């Protein structure tokens, strides 16, 4: 439970007096606290440093070491104090947590030491207050990453593969980590070299060379030495194809590999060559073919396998896409506005360049980016005025966001990471809160199941019931009082959903409702499982399902004589059930009458007298789908 709630429990219990006049049943007896109630000062000796605190302070968090009976293990009889052989400096913070309810992380301490102390004292790090939480998380992450780096550097890359790895695995490793073997390194450099060669060849073949003998026109080198370039291109493409096929073969997950960015780049780099081979030497098609050659420039992107920096740049661009998008959008807006204005301003002029608004786009872009080629200039006065406004605003529109975007790169990058962290933390926190809530409820339900609600005096009670702290006793008593007030009981999600399923099929008369509700409470002393069965069988609000109906007269079994079904008699029968509480299985046997899988569609079956003592075990799970009608005698 959260901070200091233990202090308020007595108050909440006192306020339960408000339920008394409304309660349908008598309240259960409260737990008797045999230990002395008076508050006392405890001495805690941590490696020689003596701390003193009230017992109540430590009791506020009963699920930690100091708040539970676990500290008794550390009690030193001779010196009448609790001795811990731990760091006294850290203990100061731990004790402050008990006092103030907020756990702070001391910045000068090592994160691992702090974590260990928290683990020792049974405090979950999630309750660190908001003031220190971010720092704690950052340092913890940093530490983990550093450790991960160290281990990663130590292992995988340079360590030899296990001897039974297949050739495929070794090949893949060679591709991914070229430093592992000499062959891989050689291949790495050869590929790099050929990428460079291919790119340079692409560039050089457009450079004009000296013309052939006998002609005056300058030829691009590509056409002059076409054979040489073709051979070089073929060699490069062969190498790239070979590399791609090998990677495809070695990839552990081929589909994933084929969808990755690098593989797409590889394919785009070598495709034009093959298309060029396949395509006939046709004049019409060769124009398109020439366009395809442009894609050869994508080979330069293959360098990103060789360069870490390129990869990081690509990633940052991707993560800042929204900012870039905004810049583009605002630019487009400004361009359209100014182009329109310029067009209409220059419309009157003869022989003007501003033939249409799209034509004015070019002017606007050149002016706004302060390029100013001068191929399009306004002639009218209005055009010149708006042109100057355009160039001034261009400076603002472009020059301002660019530094912002540059700083946004780092800010957004870090912020994204922090946002993800926070979201994950939030999810974890909410999950923990939900779990804690469920834990409290489950603790109460467990308490009920262990028979904690019976009026027991000491000896008969189960050990697990005895070992609960007085806080839990009192809290459970409070919840029990609420149950008695409203005449309903707490259940868990599972039971509730099961009940919802069965009840959704149909309804019965209100008379049966009241009967069942009365019965339900009266059997509360019995363990939950048996109760569930009893209730299922006796729950007359549940009706037919799957056409299987079983008339049941459980309670008649116990009494030999048939009784009229009145409220008092039902009560009497449940008293009998109460008496049989010690022998839980026995009770379960009496009540449970399993429905056979092949159900007779008959409406009324004769009540089968289950002899006491015959243990019919049917899985409680099966009861989810079994519904029973109570027999009306």
């Amino acid at each position, binding site marked *: 439970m959260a901070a200091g709630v233990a202090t308020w429990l007595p108050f909440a219990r*006192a306020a339960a007096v408000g*339920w*008394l*006049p*409304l309660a*349908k049943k008598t309240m259960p007896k409260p737990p008797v606290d045999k230990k002395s109630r008076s508050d006392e000062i405890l001495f805690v000796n941590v490696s020689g440093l003596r701390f003193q605190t009230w017992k*109540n302070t430590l009791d506020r968090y009963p699920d930690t070491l100091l708040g539970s009976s676990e500290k008794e293990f550390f009690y030193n009889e001779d010196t009448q104090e609790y001795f811990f052989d731990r760091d006294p400096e850290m203990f100061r913070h731990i004790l402050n947590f008990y006092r103030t309810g907020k756990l702070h992380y001391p910045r000068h301490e090592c994160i691992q030491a702090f974590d260990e102390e928290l683990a020792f004292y049974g405090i979950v790090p999630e309750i660190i207050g908001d003031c220190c939480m971010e720092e704690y998380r950052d340092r913890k992450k940093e530490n983990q990453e550093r450790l991960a780096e160290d281990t990663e550097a130590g292992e995988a890359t340079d360590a030899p593969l296990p001897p039974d790895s297949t050739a495929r695995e070794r090949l893949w490793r060679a591709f991914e980590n070229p430093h592992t073997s000499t062959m891989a390194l050689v291949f790495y450099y050869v590929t790099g070299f050929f990428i460079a060669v291919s790119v340079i060849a692409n560039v050089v073949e457009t450079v004009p060379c000296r013309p052939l003998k006998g002609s005056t026109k300058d030829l691009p080198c590509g056409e002059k030495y076409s054979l040489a370039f073709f051979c070089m291109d073929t060699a490069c493409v062969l190498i790239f194809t070979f590399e791609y096929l090998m990677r495809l073969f070695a990839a552990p997950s081929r589909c994933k590999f084929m969808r990755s960015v690098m593989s797409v780049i590889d394919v785009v780099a070598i495709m034009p060559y093959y298309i060029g081979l396949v395509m006939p030497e046709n004049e019409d098609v060769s124009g398109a073919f020439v366009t395809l050659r442009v894609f050869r420039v994508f080979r330069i992107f293959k360098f990103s396998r060789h360069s870490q920096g390129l990869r990081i740049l690509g990633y940052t661009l991707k993560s800042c896409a929204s900012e870039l998008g905004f810049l583009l959008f605002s630019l487009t807006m400004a361009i359209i506005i100014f182009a329109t204005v310029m067009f209409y301003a220059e419309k009157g002029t003869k022989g003007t360049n501003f033939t249409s608004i799209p034509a004015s786009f070019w002017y606007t872009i050149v002016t706004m980016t302060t390029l100013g080629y001068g191929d399009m200039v306004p002639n009218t006065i209005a055009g010149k005025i708006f042109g100057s406004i355009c160039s001034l605003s261009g400076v603002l529109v472009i020059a301002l966001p660019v530094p912002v975007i540059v700083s946004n790169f780092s800010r957004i990058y870090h912020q994204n990471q922090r946002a993800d962290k926070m979201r994950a933390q939030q999810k974890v926190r909410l999950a923990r809160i939900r779990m804690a809530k*469920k834990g409290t409820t489950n603790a109460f339900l467990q308490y009920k199941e262990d028979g904690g609600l019976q009026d027991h005096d000491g000896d008969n009670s189960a050990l697990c019931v005895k070992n609960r702290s007085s806080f839990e006793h009192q*809290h459970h008593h409070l919840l029990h009082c609420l149950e008695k007030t409203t005449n309903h009981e707490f259940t868990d999600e599972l039971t509730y959903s099961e009940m919802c399923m069965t009840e959704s099929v149909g309804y019965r008369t209100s008379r049966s409702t009241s009967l069942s509700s009365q019965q339900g409470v009266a059997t509360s002393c019995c363990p939950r499982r048996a109760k569930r069965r009893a209730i299922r069988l006796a729950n007359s*609000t549940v009706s037919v399902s799957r056409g299987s109906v079983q008339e049941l007269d459980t309670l008649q079994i116990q009494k030999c004589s048939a009784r009229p079904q009145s409220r008092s008699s039902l009560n009497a029968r449940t008293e009998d059930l109460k008496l049989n509480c010690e022998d839980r299985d026995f009770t379960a046997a009496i009540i449970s009458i399993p429905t056979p899988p092949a159900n007779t569609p008959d409406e009324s079956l004769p009540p089968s007298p289950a002899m006491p003592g015959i243990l019919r075990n049917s899985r409680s799970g099966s009861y989810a789908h079994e519904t029973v009608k109570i027999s009306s005698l």
Partner: protein
Amino acid sequence: MGALMVIFSVQPKQRRKRQDSVEDELELSAVRHRPEGLEQLEAQTRFSRKELQILYRGFKNECPSGVVNEDTFKDIYSQFFPQGDASTYAHFLFNAFDTDHNGSVSFEDFVMGLSILLRGSVQEKLNWAFNLYDINKDGYITKEEMLDIMKAIYDMMGKCTYPILKEETPRQHVEIFFQKMDKNKDGVVTIDEFIDCCQNDENIMRSMQLFENVI
């Protein structure tokens, strides 16, 4: 000229805002409450000196400023009933404790309330319960008030109960209550009817004695 006007009109608003924020800050820090002396409280309540000391230490730890406001109260009370929604009932409870209706429960209110609940006579306890149910404190419990209280209590149970809570369960419970308590069938329960009826009901009387030693 117009620009000057605009500038001047903006300024006073800022000054006012600054003043308000200063006042707000003062108010926040001024909410500190020191309770009356130990002897006085000892005289007014039925707790011993030691008990008062323990109570105050716990109270002050939770609320260093010395008062509990309604939201904190709702938070605290909700922690005890994780399955359901305890805020409505906590609201009624808060009003029952906040006897001077100033929006916050000080240590005196807290300890007086506890004194009645734990060490008071049966009459006083029933009085307190009546005060809790009587939402508008007019001396009568109407069916609507009772229904509100009942719904609030059932809300605390949450969804997952056995048997499943139906819409009309609180209403039925209210009917039963009124049948029992409203002797002259005039649709409201007065304090005398309430106390009379409760004193004649052995269930209630028996339960009353169970809450003696909560502290």
